[in-house]
């Protein structure tokens, strides 16, 4: 799942379950769709400095990231993910772009 598709899922009302591991900057996410298919991938996000600076858990950071991106860019006017990431970098929510 890319960050873009995760945000799209949030905007379209789907619940997302995210699983993270301590001291690892990768997570997996599951979109609760109504059909058989679902999206699943790794969110490549550098988190360690955020954990230190904001005293947040990995999961908190990812959820904040998704919520922020989704609210900034509603589904109908969704910008390319690169633009969204630039915004997030400006507000200090991410350190580098997802791979």
């Amino acid at each position, binding site marked *: 799942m890319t960050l873009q598709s995760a945000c799209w899922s949030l905007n379209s009302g789907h619940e997302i*379950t995210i*699983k993270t*591991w301590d001291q*690892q900057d*990768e*997570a*997996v996410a*599951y979109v*609760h769709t109504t059909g*058989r*298919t*679902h999206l*699943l*991938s*790794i969110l490549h996000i550098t988190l360690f400095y955020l954990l230190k600076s904001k005293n947040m858990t990995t999961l908190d950071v990812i959820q904040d990231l998704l919520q922020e991106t989704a609210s900034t860019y509603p589904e109908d006017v969704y910008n390319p993910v690169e633009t969204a990431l630039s915004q997030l970098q400006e507000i200090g929510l991410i350190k580098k772009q997802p791979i």
Partner: protein
Amino acid sequence: MKISDLSSAEIRSLLGNGELLIHIQPFVVRIKTDIPSLVQDIASMYVHFDVVPPHRFADFHVEVSRERGLRRWFSPLARFYFDGRPSFIPLPVHQAFAMLEWGVNWCVAAHAHQYLILHAAVIERGGRAVILPAPPGSGKSTLCAALITCGWRLLSDELGMYDIQSSRIYGMARPLNLKNRSIEIIRDFAPQATMTAPVPDTTKGTVCLMRPPDDSVRRKSEPANPAWIVLPRYVPNASAALAHHSSAKTFMLLAEQSFNYEVHGAQGFNAIGDLVDQCECYQFTYSRIEDAIAVFDELSLGESS
């Protein structure tokens, strides 16, 4: 009663009538065949397995029989039947045993959704299991075959059945499927191992089956606690080395290598997450079997870095 308690004539008769029921814990499979070489291979490879009386319930009813028609006189084919219906394309009759094994794998993978089914070899020592999920060609069956001749218990070389409720893993301890160069490697490494004759020109190259150890078959109903997930990779001339593998990437690989992850939906997601949490995750490269065994011995003793 075990297969070993039956005479060749009895096995042939039961198979001919579709009355041979083999207990491949937790399933019972009813097998029918009219192919003499398949009768021999079943008798040899399943020799330690329990036989169930013919009137009892069977989970899977399978048959591998010769195709009718003129072709049977010059290039005979065999076909796999599931519940009396022809399934899959027919294959040359000399591939009958491999076809039976692939067919039974399909039966389990397509129907046993009470488990999360992983395409993985699973071995155990001291109650703790190593799960070896890997795509074909990674050397997992070779590694698995070698390790079970050196003190590890075989749960499976192909299908790991993870019980979501208990977080334990099961296997059926069925014959191991060896391919191409791994046949020669295991023959050299474990000359005492019993194997079928190599079958060339299958879709997977040359294949042969290896008989599971008696002790593994006897203990096939015992689950194990997943402790390690090891992604093996055969690299020519590489020294044996374990390297930590990220939990997220391991999760992704397990999901990809699961036959029914999508069937379980969110429960499958949580189950794989739990499985990864239970285990230390490694990538393992090796070239020499002896070195690989030493590394796995250290792993089981808790001496890996």
